[in-house]
């Protein structure tokens, strides 16, 4: 108990709909790497937000270095030498690394004994020293907006170190990194521990825990399952504890037999606003009754590729052939009418009009034609009819049925609404981007079954997902994208999850 730097004692945190943390007690030793493992929504981030002063717990006590404390703001957490690297970095993009690091605790010098001025020089020296001590390579004068994600993360780490943080919380730090970057981050984390810091690592990736963590606590649906020495538990055991049931790899679908080609993507290249090539000469095809999935770490051009096919982005070069016709220059609506359905990544900002009611959103792609609209006049009763039908068919839960404002619905039901709408279009090609992100286990299963049903009924499906498991479960053909390029194309039957994992990390390039 003496060397426990953090003790959480029976912490409970409730939100209006759920209990995010249910009576959780943990103690973390000084100088260890302590992993918090759990699925999305298991309550890891909430628990650490409680420790960092972002949320106040409804019940329970917190002890830091043996003393009971009340942490009500990040500022107080910081005073207790607790630092946190959030999933979304909190950096000022048009300022330099140094300016970002010193923000809020700027050192000053007097000029002419009169004017006080920020001591940029002194700060820069200190940052350089910290960088060198912990192997965090960053140019203190670079502007944040010019830096890649991994360097921004190092800035966030330096920010904590500059504030003399001793307890460092990392919230899913590897989600946005490439494999090489993950390696170097993990070695930074180790060197931080060797420098005497205490690390809390929030993650759902088992291999990372195996690599660096000393102990891990597993959370499942808000409850603490147990705390284990990493050396004494296998990844398989961790996985089943995390999910809460024995994980099965069984796929419930028939063998893919091949069908006529629906979509041909030829040499698509796309530059983004900053003139960076995000999709690089990509070609592939999708056939009737086939699920083609694109695997890859986030930010490797998959989402942009889907946007290009759906017409949301215009490619810099290349063509898209759909059912034999070139649709590269067609509008979004023309593609919809040609029977392409698209479930976008951002369901709240793209897929739905949050301030409209459910019935309108369930007809968002067909509102302009009969029977919803005749001669320019909308027909609300048709919207309602369609809405009620889909609500029933897809079990979309909402407080006021058709007239519920979509903003007030839960994420899972919003996603169900989008999927119901798109499937009801009776399209020939379905593009799903991360259809199950952030949903609970039941909803995920439901959506995956619907995707398979589409395939069984002879539709062509393009699935983009970050979840390797989902890809392995659903696909007939797997394409791996890395740095905007196709790294590998494999038949599902001829490949293992491990192999795909290697391709995703850019390790092996298929000739």
């Amino acid at each position, binding site marked *: 108990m003496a060397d426990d730097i953090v003790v959480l004692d029976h912490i409970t945190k409730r939100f209006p709909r759920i209990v995010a943390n249910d009576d959780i007690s943990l103690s973390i030793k000084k100088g260890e790497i302590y992993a918090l493992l759990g699925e999305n929504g298991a309550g890891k981030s909430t628990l650490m937000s409680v420790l960092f002063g972002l949320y106040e717990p409804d019940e329970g006590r917190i002890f830091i270095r043996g003393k009971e404390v009340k942490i009500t703001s990040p500022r107080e957490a910081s005073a207790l030498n607790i630092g946190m690297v959030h999933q979304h970095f909190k950096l000022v993009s048009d300022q330099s690394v140094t300016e970002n690091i010193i923000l809020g605790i700027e050192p000053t010098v007097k000029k002419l004994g009169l004017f006080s001025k920020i001591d940029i020089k002194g700060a820069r020296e200190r940052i350089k020293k910290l960088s060198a001590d912990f192997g965090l390579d960053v140019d203190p004068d670079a502007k944040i907006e010019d830096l890649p994600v991994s360097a921004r993360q190092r800035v966030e780490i330096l920010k904590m170190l500059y504030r003399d943080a001793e307890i460092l919380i990392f919230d899913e730090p590897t989600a946005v990194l490439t494999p090489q970057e993950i390696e170097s981050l993990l070695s930074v984390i180790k060197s931080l521990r060797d420098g005497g810091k205490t690390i809390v690592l929030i993650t759902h990736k088992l291999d990372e825990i195996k690599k660096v963590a000393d102990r891990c606590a597993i959370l499942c649906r808000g409850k603490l399952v147990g705390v284990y020495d990493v050396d004494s538990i296998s990844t398989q055991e961790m996985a089943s504890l995390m999910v809460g049931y024995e994980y099965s790899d069984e796929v419930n679908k028939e063998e893919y037999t091949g069908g006529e080609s629906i979509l041909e993507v030829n040499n698509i290249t796309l530059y983004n606003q900053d003139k960076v090539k995000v999709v690089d000469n990509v070609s592939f095809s999708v056939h009737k009754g086939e699920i083609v999935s694109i695997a890859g770490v986030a930010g490797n051009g998959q989402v942009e590729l889907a946007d290009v096919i759906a017409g949301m982005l215009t490619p810099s070069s290349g063509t898209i052939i759909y059912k034999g016709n070139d649709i590269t220059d067609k509008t979004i609506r023309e593609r919809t009418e040609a029977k392409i359905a698209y479930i976008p990544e951002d369901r709240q*900002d793209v897929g739905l*009009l949050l301030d409209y009611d459910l019935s309108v959103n369930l007809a968002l792609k067909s509102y302009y034609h009969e029977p919803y609209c005749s001669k*320019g006049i*909308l027909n609300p009763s048709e919207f309602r009819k369609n809405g009620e039908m889909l609500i029933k068919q897809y079990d979309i839960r909402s407080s006021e049925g058709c007239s519920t404002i979509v903003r007030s619905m839960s994420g899972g039901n919003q996603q169900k609404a989008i999927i119901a709408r798109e499937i009801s279009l009776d399209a020939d090609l379905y593009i799903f981007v991360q259809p199950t992100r952030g949903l609970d286990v039941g909803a995920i299963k439901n959506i995956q079954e619907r995707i398979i049903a589409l395939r069984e009924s002879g539709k062509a499906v393009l699935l983009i997902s970050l979840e390797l498991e989902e890809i392995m479960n659903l696909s007939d053909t797997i394409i791996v994208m890395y740095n905007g390029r196709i790294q590998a194309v494999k038949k599902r039957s001829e490949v293992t999850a491990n192999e795909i994992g290697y391709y995703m990390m850019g390790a092996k390039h298929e000739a």
Partner: protein
Amino acid sequence: MKHKGYKKAIVRILGPGKAQYLRISLFCIFISLVAGSVLLLLLGKNPLEGYVSILQGAGFIPKARYAGHKSIFTDFMSLVNYTTPMIFASLSFAVAMRCGIFNINISGMMLFSGFIASITVGYSSIPAPFAQILVVLIAVVAGAFSGALIGWLKHRFNANEVVISIMFNYIVSYVISFFIQTMFINPTTRQSERVGDNAMLTGVDTMIGDLRMDVSYVFPLAIIAVILIGFMFSKTRIGFELKAVGMNHSASRYAGIRIGRSVIFSMALSGVLAGLAGVSYYLGTFASIQPRVVPSLGFDAIAVALLGNNNPLGCLLASFLVMTISNGTTYMSSRLGVLREIASLITGILLLFSACGGAFKALADKYKEELDNEIDGGESK
């Protein structure tokens, strides 16, 4: 716990539920009237007497006595005449705002169409009904043109419509001032020459029975505009698309709506309404243009539309309210012996509070949530 009663009261009055926006607008009006009363009290006047005389001046309550050929009806018709341009102008703002665009160029558009109509038809000898119809048509075309131009610039160049609009206001104002001063000036009034009665959209000093009054011929058009715009937003496809674009560009694009077309269309429509406001102002309420002056009505309309929650019917009512204050105050100032400038001051205060409407809503919604949570929390324990 102490504040629970007060929170409950706020939720009851302003909280979510039926006609929340209407209740909030009424609340804004109410506290503005309270603030106005304080102002009048500070000046040593009786607020009640003040408000009664405002209503008398605006033609809602009979005055003690009337001059020859005047009655409560003439006062009310005068109010209608002054309100007509405001209805058009506030609709103009609302149409653009619903599509997510700030049209601060209403003043400039009014001036532009008023000027074009004046010099083409206003100074001509085209006989009456044709001249008036032409004036309206010119307003529609000139307004649509200037609106579409700004919409296009915004869409094509991603130019900040607020700054562009403001610049256009000044350019239009100075250029028109130049033409008026070199070609159309009336040396005694220092304004442009009066337009002919044949082109006027207001019948000045029309005799109806024994009464002499100003009759706005385009007021019915304003009512029709309110109905049509209301219909467009609630029932039609194009109205739905404009609102969708105003809410969220990416989702609208995803639904297949063409953003550029919607933006340009809504600005053109906003321009048409601003054009109608312009002609009913410069060839109706007034008959000449003052050089170098941008009509402040174009700016007031922004806040009027806000008070009316960008809803056509709301715009109509808010226009009447604001113009009642500004028209009726002339009478109040003579009755109570306060300065006439108090009219715009009371209007300003009203607009100030209506700008806070969103805050009142947020506050009430927050309290509601807090109270609900307390109930939930209580149950779960």
